[in-house]
């Protein structure tokens, strides 16, 4: 199993009206799992506990109670440092936007992602980044430019490259196509799907855009996973 959640419960420790935590809903998941190499599309409205779920799976947040098992490891039993390490080593992550540090170049951005993983070796690094950027059709002239100056489509492709550099077993995509136009979105989706199958990566794709659902074999509604969302 790539992901297994059992009786997972989460509540933000802060006061519920804290503006810094817009998503203060409580997460409550009885039982939910994703098997290895599965490509799952999860849809739901924003504010339905989506970010919290993803933060739990990537180990940025820790569940208040219950078992969070990712790639066979119990995240709820790790300390913060171990979860940071685990995330760097095993999980790739793509956001809707702001996937990259805008003032760093593509190479630096990818290198940065590499720094926190166990595969932190500088010598072969450039040799790995080069083919990766070539695969994603980033012209060599743009490798060192601050990524903020590149097009959104290019930025999202570099984002995938960054997510892939540590050869993750699990790739989490959080509305990665919302900022793209139709053409770019189709390209992005097919590249992403090919990549996931080629590298045997478990893909968890979260979006509210149901038109993307046909790329996936399994479609889950967040509202069905999270029993707390209904009450709120």
């Amino acid at each position, binding site marked *: 199993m790539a992901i297994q959640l059992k009786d997972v419960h989460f509540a*933000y420790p*802060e006061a519920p009206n804290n503006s*810094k*935590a817009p998503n203060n809903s409580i997460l409550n998941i009885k039982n939910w799992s994703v098997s290895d190499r599965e490509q799952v599309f999860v849809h739901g409205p924003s504010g339905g506990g989506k*970010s919290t779920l993803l*933060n739990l799976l*990537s180990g*940025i*947040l820790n569940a208040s109670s219950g078992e969070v098992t990712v790639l066979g490891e119990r995240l709820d039993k790790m300390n*913060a*440092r171990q979860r*940071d*390490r685990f*995330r*760097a*080593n095993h999980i790739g*992550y793509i*956001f809707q936007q*702001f*996937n*990259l*540090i*805008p*003032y*760093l170049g593509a190479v*630096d951005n990818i*290198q*940065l*992602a590499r*720094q*926190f*993983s166990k595969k932190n070796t500088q010598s072969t690094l450039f040799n790995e980044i080069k083919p990766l950027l070539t695969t994603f059709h980033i012209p060599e002239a743009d490798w060192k430019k601050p990524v903020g100056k590149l097009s959104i489509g290019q930025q999202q492709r570099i984002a995938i490259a*960054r997510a892939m550099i540590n050869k993750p077993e699990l790739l989490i995509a959080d509305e990665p196509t919302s900022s793209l136009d139709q053409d770019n979105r189709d390209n992005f989706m097919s590249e992403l799907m090919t990549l996931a199958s080629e590298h045997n990566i478990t893909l968890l794709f979260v979006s509210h855009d149901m038109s993307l659902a046909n790329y996936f074999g399994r479609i889950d509604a967040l509202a069905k996973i999270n029993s707390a969302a209904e009450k709120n």
Partner: protein
Amino acid sequence: MFMRLSSKSLLNRKGSVLLTIMAMSVSIFVLLGVEHIRSQTKESFNSTLSGVDLIVGARTGSLNLLLYSVFRIGSPTNNIDWETYQSISSNPKVAWAIPISLGDSHQGYRVMGTTADYFEYFSYGNKRQLSFSKGKPFEEIFDVVLGSQVAKKLGYSLGEEIVLAHGLGSTSFSLHRNNPFKVTGILATTGTPVDQTVHVSLEGIEAIHRNWQPGVTMPGSSSTNKPLHPLELEPEKITAFMLGLTSRMATFRIQRDINNYSKEPLSAILPGVALSELWQMMGLLENTLRLIAGLILISAVLGLSAMMLASIKEREREIQLLRVIGAPAFYLFLLIELEALLISLISMLLGTAGLYLSLIITRDLLSSNFGLHIGLNILSLNNTLFLLLVAVSTMIAAAIPSLTVYKVAHRGG
């Protein structure tokens, strides 16, 4: 990578970072400058005179006497009689005496009339005696010995003739044109007011003022017309004199005797005591300056902290991103601290360089106008400690934004 990330992040926020750097540089400039000038002034003053037990002049405050006789600052209140000098210097407990006669100048440099004993007994710094870089002491009436800076600035060499001006200031209207002096010696650099002094014999001073009415030379009375003899030129009045005693123990007795001298009102001062009086007076000023410099620094460091804190708001997504790619919360804490430290290091460099430059530009001005000899070694022990203090206070102030980032990171963005 860590370094690259923080420096590029700073570059990305050029505007606010630059302003913060400027504010900090200015405060570091002030902090180091105050401390440097304070310690250098003290050192410069303390090393101006050594081995002189008493300074005697007309009745006045001890500071005033010290300042005009040694530092050539201010003006004498009154002159004293030559006879007084002779009677006091003939005291058996007096080992040597150096008379001083002030009041004339040359191109803004003060002229001091004295005797050849000056070159023998006067010492400065750590009991160092005056030495000649060129030539020898004055022998003739119209011989002159220049301080090193006078010679250098005005480009004089041995054998040249110069004209003294009556009164002080570089643009005097009444020159002693009839009696040019010949340069016979140039002193080695001492780093004291001696460097800015033009030394002539007492007889020389007497000669140029003979038949002199304030403002005009009497027609037909030019003293070059007839040869002058040193013995005829015994001075009537001098400004002050310095005493070296045979025994230190006698200092207070002689001082009391001089202060009670019946024929005219005199003041005798111990240079060391007068100097410490000066420092006491300056102490309040020094501490005020230090306090102001410290407050400026605190406000600059707080400004830095505020700037960083404001930037955190814009950077929340960046923080979230770094977290997602595996950066521990502590890494982000250190990142903000490093950025603050970088700003503070750049400011230190700029502040120190700025101070160095301004010292190079102003040191000649300070030494010729105020007799202050300011060295260029800014990084004294005290100042190095100050710089360390700046770094530490930066780290402490930056803890506020850093902890905020840490908290944001822990909450998961």
